[in-house]
């Protein structure tokens, strides 16, 4: 599903974000990527969504060789991948239903199709009763569910969740993780990045640890192995304090 073959990314300022990274993710996998700030997680995601282009190596996603795509193809690439972020990135002046519908509108879906798909997706994420509310009327967890619904509405084969629990309290964070697991059970490949040790350890799924642009660990049923999670961004209070090096 996702193949990185000796991928290197050097930014114009000379900073090397990824150096010769090899990564292979099978379809329907649930993979967690951990790494301290600046390790290269964000660059990895930006390469997948084509916000950045790699300097060398090969990236193949869903059979599509990223060397062959042109600027015109980029929107099509993005439609094949759902992404959710720590800060939700919802349109504040549109209702919940409209936010979800927006992803379909930009790809030219018919109104009838949108009207059918949006309520279904909101039911899946447990927000069917809040379709007509605005994002500011929702809790953080609910906003993230809206973002997930928007990411999934086009039924992508891959869902990237970039620190989706970063701004949420533990209860809401778990609900989001459970939702991601549910989506994964339906057959979507999920790529999760997080700093939350408890979540990583409880998931018992594949964990890839990145440091300085390289993969330093890749474990089936892995655990959180970073020694000093200095970049908790205040969201995982109470969970990840006093992390010890494991393994």
């Amino acid at each position: 599903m996702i193949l990185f073959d000796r991928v290197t990314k050097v930014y114009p300022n000379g900073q090397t974000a990824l150096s010769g990274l090899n990564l292979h993710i099978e379809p329907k996998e649930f993979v967690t990527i951990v790494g301290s700030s600046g390790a290269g997680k964000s660059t990895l995601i930006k390469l997948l969504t084509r916000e950045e282009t790699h300097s060398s190596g090969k990236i193949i996603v869903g059979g599509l060789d990223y060397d062959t795509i042109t600027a015109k193809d980029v929107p099509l690439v993005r439609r094949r991948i759902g992404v959710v972020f720590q800060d939700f990135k919802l349109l504040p002046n549109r209702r919940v239903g409209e936010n979800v519908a927006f992803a379909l509108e930009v790809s030219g879906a018919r109104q009838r199709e949108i009207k059918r798909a949006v309520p279904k997706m909101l039911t899946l994420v447990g927000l069917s009763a809040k379709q007509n509310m605005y994002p500011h009327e929702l809790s953080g967890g609910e906003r993230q569910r809206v973002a997930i619904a928007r990411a999934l509405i086009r039924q992508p084969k891959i869902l990237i969740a970039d620190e989706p629990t970063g701004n949420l309290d533990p209860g809401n964070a778990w609900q989001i993780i459970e939702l991601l697991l549910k989506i994964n059970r339906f057959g979507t490949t999920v790529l999760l990045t997080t700093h939350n040790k408890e979540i990583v350890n409880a998931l018992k799924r594949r964990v890839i640890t990145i440091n300085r642009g390289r993969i330093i660990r890749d474990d089936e049923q892995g655990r959180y192995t970073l020694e000093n999670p200095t970049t908790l961004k205040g969201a995982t209070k109470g969970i990840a304090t006093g992390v010890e090096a494991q393994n």
Partner: protein
Amino acid sequence: MLQFWRILHGGIRNFLRNAWLSTAATAVMTVTLIIVIVSFISSLALTATIKGVTDKIDVSIFLNNNTTPDQVAAFEAALKSSGNVASLMYVSPDQAVANYKNQNKDKPSLIQALDTAGNVLPSSIEVKAIDPKHLDAIEAVVSQQANQSLLDPTAPPSYTGGRKETIDRIVHFANFFKTAGLAASIVFVVISTLIIFNTIRMAIFTRRDEIEIMKLVGATKWFIRGPFIFEAALYGIIAAIVAVTFSYLVLLSSAPKVASYIDFGSTISFFQSYPFVILGGELLLGIIIGAVSSILAMSRYLKL
């Protein structure tokens, strides 16, 4: 098609959400389009006025009353050969007196004065020139040595008098006004381009989160750019409608007041005959100014 409507809808929503900036941009565009249309109307009206004035002017060549019909015929042939004669007419002394009495029938004192003087007026050749602004060729024929003896020594040909200078002054003024109108139009087109450029730039900044989300969910470049272009085109569309309506109403109400100086009759009839040509031209200009400014702003500030 569906995408097109979504883009239009996005443009209208942006326009309304940005109401103050949109109003300012539309107002500047309206002023620009009014200046363009005023300059166009003035040009038309001045051309009509000049044509009216110059058409009324004949060159009058006053003849010595001893001139024989053969000499007159030869002189007429020579004038025609100058190439700038639309028509010419010989006016005999009797005819001249009759014309004078007819023109001044409301002024008995003038007619009485003529009677007292013995009803003497010179015969003349009245020439209507093809191009009244360039009478040099006719003047050359008249000043030929052979023709000098035919002229009335007391009444020089009329083109050498004050009337020619007046025509020259009107033509000069009209040309100046046309040039000034063109220059003002260009200046204001540039100003409104800059202001719309800035408005769209602000809109891009205030909506950068939304643009990022659009990119994130896979919107194409034109789906993101389209609403900005349509928003700016909308300034032009509204401005064109306001400018044409405003100009027409002002023209209709002011034409009678200035009718004795400037001939707006043909302009009004042009307006009435081709309202959609004028509106279409203004719409086209407004849309082009809007779209170009918006595309310029995006090429600078909207990196996709």
